[in-house]
């Protein structure tokens, strides 16, 4: 298992230029048919945010503000945007990277091609959009009471953590979905569920059912950590990494396990990928 992990890590580093170029082509070929081109990458999230704000912000919460841990009061819209900016990256990245291998295998047609670079460049292509959206969100935040702060320096850490999380997950899902195509459907439905159990549109600082606190169940989801981390950085509420040190430890142990399982699976099956087409 550890050997496979080293193989994958080496492959990722060696094909860094390849990943950058291929992801650039990926972005390009996705938008050649639209007149508005890349502008849709901003427009689509805006439309979604508007409807979520109407339904959950005005409808369900009645415009009520959200109180963060340190008693900072945040308008729902800003609270939602700072979380959803992660979702707009993670959601397409997970679903596209899990089908990345089987949908591109015919193009590769060479066993010597570093297979593990395929999910990486798909994730990378989505990361460019994420950076663009982040820039927009940060600019918008400057017109609110949540201005640029020292907490922003946590952002690169959380971006890197998100990228590694996505790669670890993609190694597992892209391999499995190549062998059993149904996995792609499972990924899609789980993603639809995840939207509601991650603090994105529903503020869940406490989930108590019949006197039992079930918040820990929600926190098992690694996305919870990432979303809250982004939010803490953008709103300048806490030093999330150290404030929740045990949670940070949990997150990275989980990622390590996922990476180990993912690379073992990937290395075991990659020579036979063509046979599964």
């Amino acid at each position: 298992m550890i050997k496979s992990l080293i193989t994958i890590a080496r492959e990722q580093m060696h094909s860094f230029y390849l990943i950058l170029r291929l992801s650039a082509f990926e972005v390009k070929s996705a938008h050649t048919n639209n007149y508005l081109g890349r502008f849709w990458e901003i427009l689509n999230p805006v439309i979604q945010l508007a409807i979520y704000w109407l339904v959950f912000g005005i409808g369900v919460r009645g415009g009520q503000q959200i109180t963060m841990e340190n008693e900072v009061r945040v308008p729902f819209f800003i609270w939602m945007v700072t979380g959803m900016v992660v979702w707009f990256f993670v959601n397409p990245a997970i679903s596209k990277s899990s089908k990345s291998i089987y949908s591109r295998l015919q193009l590769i047609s060479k066993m010597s091609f570093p297979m593990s670079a395929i999910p990486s460049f798909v994730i990378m292509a989505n990361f460019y959009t994420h950076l663009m959206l982040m820039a927009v969100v940060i600019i918008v935040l400057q017109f609110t009471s949540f201005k640029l702060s020292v907490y922003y320096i946590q952002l690169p850490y959380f971006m890197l953590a998100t990228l590694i999380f996505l790669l670890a997950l993609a190694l597992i899902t892209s391999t499995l979905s190549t062998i059993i195509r149904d996995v792609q459907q499972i990924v899609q439905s789980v993603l639809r569920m995840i939207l509601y159990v991650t603090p994105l549109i529903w503020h869940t600082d406490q989930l108590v059912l019949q006197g039992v606190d079930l918040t820990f169940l929600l926190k098992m989801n690694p996305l919870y950590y990432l979303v809250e981390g982004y939010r803490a950085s953008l709103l300048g509420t806490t030093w999330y990494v150290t404030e929740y040190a045990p949670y940070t430890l949990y997150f990275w142990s989980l990622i390590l396990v996922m990476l180990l399982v993912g690379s073992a699976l990937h290395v075991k099956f990659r020579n036979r990928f063509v046979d599964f087409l």
Partner: protein
Amino acid sequence: MSETVVVQNVCKKYKMHKSPKEKLLDVLLPKGYGEDFYALQNISFTANQGDVIGLVGVNGSGKSTLSNILGGVIPPTSGTIKTVGQASIIAISSGLNNQLTGRENIELKCLMLGFKKKEIQEMEAEIISFTDIGKFIDQPVKKYSSGMRSRLGFAISVTVNPDILIVDEALSVGDQIFGQKSKNKMFEFKQKGKTMFFVSHSMGQIKEFCDKAIWLEYGEIKDFGPVTEVIPAYESFLKKHKALTAEEQKKFREEVMRKQSGLSMT
């Protein structure tokens, strides 16, 4: 002369599944599940530097499977293949991205083949001049005519300068002018002493290019030797086969199926 391709006891086994249920069982069970189909059985041969080898055989005899294995596209089920240098397959339908322009496709394809940034820049001009499609090089490939598309694919494959070349029925691309151009390129490769494999149903082409030939029959090597011996034998087999009655032809096909399902192995 040095050996460039050494193939030893190569077998390629496919599983035939009647339903998705059998396919799932095949993935889950450690020993696999399903009826075996041997596309290739016990293939062993050696090719030297400068050899131009024709692959002949009736449909379904395993020519394309063998060329894909030689080109490293699919792995063999058992047996080993040693190749000295880089192998490249030229097939008509080489994967081009329709949304991207010809120029972008060149870079994409070269990246996929594992070339470095600088090498790609050097090769680009050469590929563009070989395709000879003018301004279309900066148009998306979806706007190309089918001739342009195959010319682009062919130009990329030959310009990457592989040591071992596998040509799968690709010499008939484009018009006669381009056909002549690609033939010249092939002769140039031959003179440089590259090892080449030709898959073709045109005996004329095989005789023109190749020195040796491999005759495949139901996934096995029926004959391997100089073109002057193998091709006449194959041609007389074809003649005889055509003369067979429908009943006899059916019997031959059944024999083939029986052999390829691996029953003759036991």
